Structure formats: C-alpha cells, structure tokens
C-alpha cells in the first residue's frame, strides 16, 4: 500500500479506481475518464494533488540561492505572488525536476515540486543551500486541490467568504496570494483557467465537499494526463528526466540565458549543447489512422529510426490519438510510428493541441 493523501477516504467513497503514482495511492478515475476530461474542458473539475511537494525557501539569501539552482531566472519575479515555471538541472544539463516557484517576499519563495522526485529534490537543494543564509522548510500536514475549467473561478469563489472571494477573483494568471492558512494560485496543468489551492490537511475535506456542492466534479489522474497532453505540458519522468536536457524536451523557452553572468547549475553544459545544436527535439504527433499512440512506441522519420513516443494517448477533444515524441532535429511533415506491429502515419504538429477548450490543430 502506498502513501495516502488526506482525501483518500473521499476517493474511496466516491468509487474511485485507485492507482500507484510515485508511491502514492491516487484516484485514476471515478467513472468515465473521457467524461471527466470533458467536464474540465466544458465546466469545472477538481483534482487531489496533495501528493505534490510544497517547500518554502526562507531567509535573506533565498533569491541568490534560487538564481543558482534554477535554469529560469527568479529575477523575473519582482511582484509579490508572481509565479515562474522552471527546470532544476544537474551540472551536465539534464533535468532533476520541473517546478513552479512563487515569489512572496524577499525572505519567502514557495516551490511546488513533483511527488515522485521529492526525496532527491530535497537532498539536492539542502546540499547546495549550505553556503547560503537560508532555510528550507516543508510545511507539515498540507493538502492541495486543483480546480480547473472555464467555470472554475466562479465556482471556487462561491465556496469562500469575503474578502477572500473578491481577492481570488482578482488574481491575475500565474499569480498567487495567501489568506491566512490558504495559499491560492491561478495556475494549473490542464490548459484551462483555474486555481491550485494549498491548505492545511485539516480543512481540505470541507473545501472538497463545498466545491462538490457547487457542481465541481472530482477528476482522476487519467483525465489529468489527457488534459495536460492536449495542453502541450510535459510530464516529468515521461517527457524529460535525468537523461535529457531542456533543449531536447521542448523547454528551451524556460532557460534564462541572460544575464550571461548568472552561473546557474547546468549552464556550461547547456551552452555546449546549444552551440553544437541539440540532436533531438520534442514534437507533437497526431495519428491519422485508427489506433492509439502509447509511450515508448518507435518513431521513424524519413527512414531514420531512433525516435520514441514519450507520452501518448487518446485526445477526447480532437477525437484522435495524440502524442509527444522525441525525434531527430530536422523533422517536419509526417513520420511513421510502430503501433502494435504496424507502421502508421502520424502528422507532426506544433504544440499545444488544445487551448481554452478548443482544438488549435
């Protein structure tokens, strides 16, 4: 049996099929995964993401430390509450984790790491923090709910009293604010509008129940995966890991090369890859025929093999199978994917597949 979030009993009562995810027992789906997907695209759904790692970095050297350990530059964060997506790299330029960092004040940055990478992330930042005047704190007994969909903002507002209701309604995209015990950010992993709410475990069941009362339906990890895939968002461990750099993972845009003097971990290795030109890149694929693209299927471009699907599945919005694939750099047009022993044609497309509920393909 894996670790359980504070909402575990709710999931069981709601009839969820549970699945192991990074050592946690998490809901895969409550009923139809495709209906859950459409629920988020068309209305609002909620995800238990309490397995994710919330870590606070506090103290006067925090900004200086984060400038060193993150490939994106926290100096882009100047307004309280502003969030930044970044990778944390090893010296060889490969990816330890991807994360969101929130700037609250000069003595407090909050980071949300992935669940499965918790232990190595904490060991890494603690090791590199030694020369800095700062503390790394994991707030105990926390829970986290993501509420996503075109009606998410209105429905989240309805479960809180004033003045919190008005203040969260005014939150700009990719911004967070805290209200006593509540930490609410206008972020997510679906390509829809919505919030992620970090709160004490003792309050999470009440908030979950209130949201359900507003018609926000529970959504499992199955739909979470098809939603993020349509939205063109990477999954750590599938689309990138400690063997790949951001430049081969569609994440070059998250690397802050300027100013040149910022010597973040992994910089010199990344500069070498950039000057030589990365050999591979991550692209989107749409399968033309009937079938479903799955992780690790082989991709061939102009007779050259060596490509691989990193995340594949069925897109309920497009009604077709879609995937991310890591392929040789000069791909365009179409490629072939080995699907259950057959070579099937797939079209190479720009990401994302879906934006604000609509196909952009």
């Amino acid at each position, binding site marked *: 049996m894996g670790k359980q979030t504070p909402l575990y009993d709710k999931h069981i009562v709601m009839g969820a099929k549970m699945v192991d995810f990074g050592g946690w027992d998490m809901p895969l789906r409550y009923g*139809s*995964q495709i209906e859950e997907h459409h629920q988020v695209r068309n209305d609002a759904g909620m995800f238990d993401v309490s397995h994710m790692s919330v870590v606070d970095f506090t103290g006067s050297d925090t900004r200086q430390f984060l400038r060193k350990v993150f490939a994106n530059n926290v100096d882009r964060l100047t307004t309280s509450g502003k969030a930044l997506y970044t990778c944390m790299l090893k010296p060889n330029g490969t990816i330890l984790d991807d994360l969101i960092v929130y700037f609250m004040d000069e003595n407090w940055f909050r980071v949300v790491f992935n669940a499965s990478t918790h232990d190595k992330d904490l060991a890494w930042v603690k090791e590199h923090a030694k020369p800095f005047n700062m503390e790394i704190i994991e707030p105990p007994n926390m829970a986290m709910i993501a509420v996503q969909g075109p009606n998410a903002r209105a429905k989240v507002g309805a479960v809180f009293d004033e003045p919190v209701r008005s203040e969260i309604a005014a939150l700009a995209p990719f911004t967070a604010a805290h209200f006593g015990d509540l930490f609410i950010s206008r972020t997510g992993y679906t390509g829809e509008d919505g919030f992620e709410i970090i709160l004490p475990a003792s309050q999470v069941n009440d908030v979950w129940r209130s949201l359900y009362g507003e018609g926000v339906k529970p959504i499992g990890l*199955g739909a979470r995966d098809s939603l993020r895939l349509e939205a063109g968002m990477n999954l750590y461990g599938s689309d990138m890991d400690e063997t790949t750099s951001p430049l081969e993972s569609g994440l070059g845009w998250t690397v802050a090369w300027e100013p040149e003097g910022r010597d973040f971990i992994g910089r010199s290795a990344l500069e070498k890859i950039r000057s030589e030109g990365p050999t591979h890149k991550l692209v989107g694929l749409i399968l033309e025929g009937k079938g479903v693209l799955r992780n690790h299927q082989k991709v061939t471009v102009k007779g050259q093999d060596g490509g691989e699907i990193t995340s594949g599945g*069925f897109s309920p919005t497009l009604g077709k199978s879609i995937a991310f694939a890591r392929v040789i750099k000069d791909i365009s047009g179409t490629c072939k994917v080995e699907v*259950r022993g057959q070579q099937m044609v797939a079209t190479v497309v720009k990401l994302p597949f879906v934006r604000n509920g609509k196909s952009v393909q």
Partner: protein
Amino acid sequence: MSNVPAELKYTKSHEWIAVDGDTATVGITDHAQDLLGDMVFIELPDVGTSFEKGDDCAVVESVKAASDVYSPLSGEVIEVNEALADNPEAVNNEPYVSWLFKIKMSDASQLDDMLDANTYSGVAADDSH
C-alpha cells in the same frame, strides 16, 4: 460487483458467449470493460475468416490499453458488429448488448470448456484483488 448474466457462457479471458443453434455470439464482459475503461477504438475480424479456439481475433482499445480478444471457439466469422466502429463506448455502456462478432461453430463440444456464470463471477472477483 460487475454484472454476470446467468444465461451466458464465459471464458477466463473475459469473453461472453451466447449460443443459438450452431452460432455463437461473442462480446467482452462487464468486468472486462470496467477494467479497461473508456473504449476508443475497436478492431473486428473480417467476415469469412476462420479461427481456432484461442486465436486472437479482435482488439479492443481503451484510454488505458489495447487488449486482444480471443476466439472462445473454433469456427468461421459470419457477422461483425460494425456499429461499434463509430460507437466504441457502447461496449462500456451495454457490454452484453454490444456483441463483437458471431461465429459459426465447427466443434460444439468446445462449449463444454466454457465457464458458467457462477464460476466466472469467481474468476472476476479474484481478478479484482
């Protein structure tokens, strides 16, 4: 608990069989569709093809995985449920109405190897743990 109609026969690989004379109608069980999740694509055999008992003869592909369907009996495919091509979720909604294919049996004695509803319920229950 999944639905296991008493009048049907079953296999350990989660196919159901309805017998009418020398024709066997084949589908997948409620338990099987529940395990696989939402169906997105169903590949059926060609009419006129002959299969031996245990041959893989169809594919049901869900959001989760592709799964082979095995012919429970030897014989010739005489009809397939073409409506499923545009409506694969019918297998989720009505697994015992949404048959996949019909076989003209070449050896009716193979029916003796099929499981009855009681026995199959046990197989499905064990499989859920």
